[in-house]
């Protein structure tokens, strides 16, 4: 995710006085609450699909069924009309925007996806999660969220995951490599809100270093990495779930 036009300094998350908060509260305050507040403005800046994601979706077989975990405003839900894709997000404000565009959506938590898998086998032919896993504040939770993606994917299916990179080569942002847990400000300009003054919200991000996402995926039972690369300030992995 890129943010506003103006360069803004980023703060190291650990250096603030939030380190004593538990992960659930941190994520509520610095991720969920923020997206509820910035949904409209955020959505107005999110309309162009990233080419790698678009290609992934367009290559799917007709009649495929899948989930976009953390679909936001639904930017990827209409890319391929020959597949059935359910948009899932934690933010009800963003889901309302997706739904108003006619997309199939629901509200849920990425750590606890409400899809059948046990009495009946997993059914999804594909699962995507774009710019979501980096919002979890501990390694355990990032692993748990990634595991969930593979749990609901059926054997032979494909999973695509994007996370923000520490190494942002193309970006004006330069992160201090000593701090992987940072606040990235979201700025709503004065002419875009009722208060008519600039509002800044801090969003929590874990910046992934090269190989970090691969390590998480490689350690998940039945997950096999097909491709891993850097694109648009993000690391991404395309993996399959083995039979």
């Amino acid at each position: 995710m890129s943010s506003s036009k103006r360069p803004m300094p980023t703060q190291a998350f650990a250096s603030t006085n939030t380190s004593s908060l538990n992960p659930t509260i941190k994520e509520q305050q610095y991720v969920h609450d923020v997206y509820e507040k910035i949904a409209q403005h955020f959505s107005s800046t999110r309309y162009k699909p990233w080419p790698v994601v678009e290609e992934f979706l367009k290559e799917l077989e007709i009649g495929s069924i899948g989930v976009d975990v953390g679909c936001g405003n639904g930017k990827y839900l209409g890319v391929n009309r020959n597949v059935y894709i359910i948009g899932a997000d934690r933010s009800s404000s963003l889901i309302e925007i997706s739904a108003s565009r006619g997309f199939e959506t629901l509200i849920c938590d990425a750590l606890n996806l409400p899809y059948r898998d046990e009495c009946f086998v997993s059914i999804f032919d594909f699962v995507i999660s774009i710019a979501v896993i980096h919002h979890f504040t501990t390694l355990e939770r990032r692993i748990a969220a990634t595991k969930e993606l593979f749990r609901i994917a059926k054997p032979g299916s494909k999973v695509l995951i994007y996370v923000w990179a520490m190494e942002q080569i193309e970006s004006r942002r330069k992160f201090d490599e000593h701090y992987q847990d940072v606040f990235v400000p979201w700025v709503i300009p004065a002419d875009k809100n009722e208060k008519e003054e600039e509002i800044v919200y801090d969003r929590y991000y874990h910046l992934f270093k090269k190989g970090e996402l691969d390590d998480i995926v490689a350690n998940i039972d039945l997950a096999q990495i097909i491709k891993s690369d850097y694109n648009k300030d993000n690391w991404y992995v395309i993996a399959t779930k083995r039979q």
Partner: protein
Amino acid sequence: MRLITHNMLQCHAKNCNSNNFPLQLSQVEIVNQETEFNPMFLRNMLPKLEWNALVKTALQINVTLPTVLPESTTDDLDEEFLKTLHGILLETHILQGAMTCPNCNRVYPIKDGIPNMLLNETEA
């Protein structure tokens, strides 16, 4: 929410691991929205559905489906039957209502077409 989506949902509350599918629909408000008929999509998608659950759920909104999905889900499946399924699976939207877990009775609300599957901290 379409019935295809419903067919994939199960209760995911902590310790609710059996008899948690399909969620039972009640107090539904339904709206039909026309959408393009895509027989190839349907033929490929149908085998992924849990048919018994779909039949059961369809009855809860007063729609009767054959108890067994005709074997020929590939090329020679009757076009009329596919059109009926298209109407039920892709054009029928549940706008308001509730989904109840047959095991633990947890109720998941559907509001403005959006199911809310969030659990509170003690349930997750």
